[in-house]
């Protein structure tokens, strides 16, 4: 090894504390980057393989009932490759030990075995055979959650009749990677089952012989989804078609895609912030290193080292730090990724989901980190390279001090000599003080960003539980019913109040854009189903016109006052133009709301309802569930307590882990910044402070000069950090927002306080470390070195 490399390594060792701090900051950024991107990659690779191997369809459609001959017309649509018709049926299940009703989705599989599209992965057993009685293949999650095995029986209520279904297979389907029952926003493995049954039997039980109510199709390469969807809609219209939709709008896939978007943000935006801070730290430290090594640079150059070699030397120092940070970060990221993948398997169900870390991910991490570091240190390295040797030989000119503003306006009487030194130091180098303050406030800010997610997520849950969904139980009917049904429900045991709702599936169009969705009809004076904006204020329902989620409005490019076309996909299927009354910044899903009366007028259906929200006296009772389940008109019953519980569980298991990583890394960064700051100012002042010690000042007094300065800087940085933290959180939230969820901007006072406390604590610990160094300051050593 060459002497210059010895110097490199020893210099690095000499600044090991600071180098370690920067390595940890870089590692934090790289870990998030590598972990999240590797998770995303693993999910994507797994998903793509699953979709293609199990022939996940490209286009889906439902209708009321279409004769099988219609399938041939669908097959003839240009661009269509394979068409698979099915009979599907929603049923209520009786699961022992569950007092709330579970719902099941029954799906037919062809008499001759394997489905041509949306094939099943068989975990155990086999597919139900033809002719044999009531055999079903059961989705794995439900089987696991309720401990069903091969040979067990499940009781379903089909068409008002109790039927016993026998489990012959445990399976997974690409359609239910994220298994959500209609209308829910969190999966409930215990209460939502998907079952596959032989087509003949299911059709017989449901009076669907020779007909289908569900169709999926795969397309030929290059075919236009939009055209196929339009043709399907035309063909299925007479049969009660509910609007065809593409794979990207298929529920399970849509959630998965939105999850990717979030991963991308966390994997890119947050690490970028971290790496930006690492670049900033590197800048501070390298500037300091170059400044302390002026005379060494001069000697190197005097002996014939070229500017390039000198620049390279300092560049290598940076490169080593970056390299270590990347390696440590990749290892952390790996561990984190494996943990996250584990968590994902609880919510996303693939035949196998294995963590894989493709080589490009750490390389990309290193490239991004390297660029950030290069940006941060270019200036310092260039300064070292360009330092004229004759000038570097001369000691730096004594700094230019002057009276501070405070002294000039006559306050000096009140200031002790050391206090004056602190103030003069700060006033003399405002840029330097500014950089320290910026660093410290970034530490506060990054902590706030990390912890903000806790505030936001729990606010979200709280709002869902107590503000948006004020009902205790929601009931959905199989078909729209007259208002009498509401009174009937109101008189059930334990029901205190029932509020109707109407849900209409429709396609809304504006210009050439369209979306398929359910329009919700809500009573004007709703007590249980209020629309909130992201500021968490109730949003008044317009008497006329339609209210859209802003994300929906944006995706359709409509503004309030525009007229959109609503093609209703049920009943008499009217097509109407409706004025957009307003766009609301709501925070979950894409929604369209109308006043229930106005929606019914649009439907020309009279006063009908799709279901009801109930308030119960006390906890919803078994008796209530029992009587709801007994009504053939009731298709679904769900209790809010359970769905909130599910949401909480999902958040706690999945999100909190990511957040914990965030907070951990933010903490590391905050400490890194604060510690670095203290060390840099120690190195800058060591000589001066040692001289003061020689002049007879005590350790305490010189500590006060240095640490007092740090304390002052920290105090100034706190409010700036709060401000930065707020905006950084805002920026991160904005980039996380998806159609699934928009984060409301909430920051609790306690979060600010905690951020401040962490930084003050880090400052105190760094102060102690520096204080110990000051106490051991070797006076002779410091004074001997010229600088």
């Amino acid at each position, binding site marked *: 090894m*060459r*002497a*210059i490399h*010895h*110097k490199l390594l*020893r*210099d690095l060792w*000499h600044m090991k504390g600071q180098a370690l701090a920067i390595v940890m900051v870089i590692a934090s950024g790289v870990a998030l980057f590598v972990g999240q991107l590797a998770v995303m990659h693993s999910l994507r690779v797994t998903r793509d393989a699953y979709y293609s191997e199990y022939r996940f369809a490209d286009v889906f459609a439902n209708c009321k009932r279409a004769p099988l001959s219609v399938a041939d017309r669908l097959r003839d649509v240009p661009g269509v490759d394979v068409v698979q018709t099915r009979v599907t049926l929603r049923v209520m299940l009786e699961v022992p030990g569950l007092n709330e009703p579970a719902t099941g989705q029954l799906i037919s599989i062809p008499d001759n075995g394997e489905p041509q599209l949306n094939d099943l992965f068989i975990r155990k057993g086999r597919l139900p055979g033809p002719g044999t009685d009531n055999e079903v293949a059961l989705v794995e999650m439900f089987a696991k959650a309720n401990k069903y095995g091969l040979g067990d029986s499940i009781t379903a209520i089909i068409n008002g009749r109790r039927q016993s279904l026998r489990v012959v297979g445990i399976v997974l389907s690409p359609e239910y990677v994220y298994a959500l029952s209609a209308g829910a926003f969190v999966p409930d493995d215990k209460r939502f089952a998907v079952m596959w049954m032989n087509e003949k039997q299911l059709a017989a039980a449901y009076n669907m012989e020779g007909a289908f109510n569900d169709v999926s199709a795969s397309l030929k390469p290059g075919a236009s989804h939009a055209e196929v969807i339009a043709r399907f809609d035309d063909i299925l219209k007479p049969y009660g078609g509910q609007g065809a939709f593409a794979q990207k709008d298929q529920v399970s896939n849509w959630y998965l895609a939105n999850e990717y978007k979030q991963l991308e943000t966390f994997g890119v935006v947050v690490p970028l912030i971290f790496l930006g801070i690492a670049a900033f730290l590197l800048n501070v430290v390298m500037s300091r290193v170059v400044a302390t090594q002026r*005379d*060494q640079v*001069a*000697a*190197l*150059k*005097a*002996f*014939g*080292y*070229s*500017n390039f070699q000198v620049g390279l030397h300092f560049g290598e120092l940076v490169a080593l730090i970056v390299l270590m940070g990347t390696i440590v970060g990749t290892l952390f990221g790996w561990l984190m990724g494996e943990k996250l993948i584990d968590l994902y398997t609880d919510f996303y169900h693939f035949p196998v989901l294995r963590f894989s870390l493709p080589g490009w991910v750490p390389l990309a991490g290193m490239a991004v980190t390297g660029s950030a570091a290069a940006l941060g240190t270019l200036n310092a390295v260039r300064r070292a390279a360009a330092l*004229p*040797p*004759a000038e570097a*030989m001369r000691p730096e000119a004594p700094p230019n001090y002057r009276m501070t503003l405070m002294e000039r306006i006559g306050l000096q009487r009140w200031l002790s000599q050391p206090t004056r030194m602190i103030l003069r130091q700060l006033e003399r180098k405002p840029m330097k003080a500014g950089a320290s303050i910026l660093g410290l406030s970034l530490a506060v800010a990054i902590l706030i960003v990390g912890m903000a997610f806790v505030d936001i997520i729990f606010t979200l849950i709280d709002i869902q539980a107590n503000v948006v969904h004020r009902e205790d139980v929601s009931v959905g009917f199989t078909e729209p019913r007259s208002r009498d049904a509401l009174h009937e429900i109101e008189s059930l045991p334990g029901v205190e109040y029932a509020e109707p709702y109407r849900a209409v599936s429709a396609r809304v169009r504006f210009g050439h854009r369209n979306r398929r969705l359910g329009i919700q009809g809500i009573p004007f004076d709703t007590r249980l189903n209020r629309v909130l904006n992201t500021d968490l204020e109730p949003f008044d329902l317009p008497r006329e016109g339609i209210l859209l989620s802003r994300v929906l409005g944006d995706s359709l490019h409509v503004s309030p006052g525009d007229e959109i076309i609503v093609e209703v996909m049920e009943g008499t299927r009217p097509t109407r133009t409706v004025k957009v009354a307003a766009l609301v910044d709501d925070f979950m899903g894409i929604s369209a709301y109308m006043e229930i009366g106005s929606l019914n007028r649009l439907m020309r259906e009279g006063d009908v309802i799709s279901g009801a929200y109930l308030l119960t006296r006390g906890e919803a009772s078994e008796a209530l569930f029992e009587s709801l389940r007994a009504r053939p008109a009731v298709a679904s019953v769900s209790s809010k307590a359970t769905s909130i519980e599910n949401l909480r569980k999902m958040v706690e298991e999945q999100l909190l882990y990511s957040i914990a990583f965030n907070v951990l890394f933010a903490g590391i960064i905050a400490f890194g910044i604060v510690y670095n700051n203290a060390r840099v100012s120690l190195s800058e002042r060591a000589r001066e402070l040692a001289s003061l010690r020689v002049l007879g000042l005590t350790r305490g007094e010189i500590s006060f000069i240095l640490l007092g300065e740090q304390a002052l800087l920290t105090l100034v940085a706190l409010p700036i950090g709060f401000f930065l933290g707020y905006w950084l959180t805002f920026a991160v939230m904005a980039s996380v927002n998806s159609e699934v969820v928009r984060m409301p901007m909430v920051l609790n006072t306690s979060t600010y306080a905690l951020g401040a406390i962490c930084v003050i604590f880090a400052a105190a610990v760094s102060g102690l470390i520096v204080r110990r160094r000051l106490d051991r300051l070797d006076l002779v*050593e410091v004074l*001997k*070195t*010229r600088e």
Partner: protein
Amino acid sequence: MSEAEKEDVYVLADDSREAVFVAEGITKVYKMGEVEVHALRGVDLQLYEGEFVVLLGPSGSGKSTLLNILGGLDVATAGTVRYRDHDLTHADESALTEYRRHHVGFIFQFYNLIPSLTARENVALVTEIADDPMSPDDALKLVDLGDRLDHFPSQLSGGQQQRVAVARAVAKRPEVLLCDEPTGALDIHTGVKVLEALARVNRELGTTTAVITHNAAIAAMADRVVHIADGRIAKIDTNTNKKDPSELEW
């Protein structure tokens, strides 16, 4: 350089030995905002092969500036400087680097050792980029530091550090050795040791040596003494009776 000019140089040189450095009319002006500092105001000087020259002069007279220009650390504002067939006045940054790397050895008043490298490594730092260097160990033995090879600068006395600096400067067998107050920070005894090392290198390797000093006593060991005052050469003395460093009286 034309033949006529060359002859001119020889006439000016007034010596049969070859001139290694030829400086003509060099001035150096530092601009500090509005103020101009004239560090050198027209210096003509020749240094000859193998000679030992001492530069004497009061503080601020421009000695370091002159030495830096000769060593290619700095460039003159006006005038010409030649080192053998190198034109240092119009050389660019990389030519100057090459020049320093292959021909010049520096010794600084404050040693400028690399604190993170041992004595041996400090020397190796230079020998690694030189053409025909001696081994770092030999160079350190030359300055009587054969037993301190693996000491860090902080573990050496000032005189020892300066001798490491001498070893570092001579290890690449430079053709010229430029020393800026090499004994400035040392006592008599250690100062003599350093000067002895310099004299030995000058004698044994035939290295052209220029030494800046405030200390007139050191002038006694030189071939020639150049007196500088206020940015000009005041006079040049030639020593007929050169003394050995050990005979110097401080």
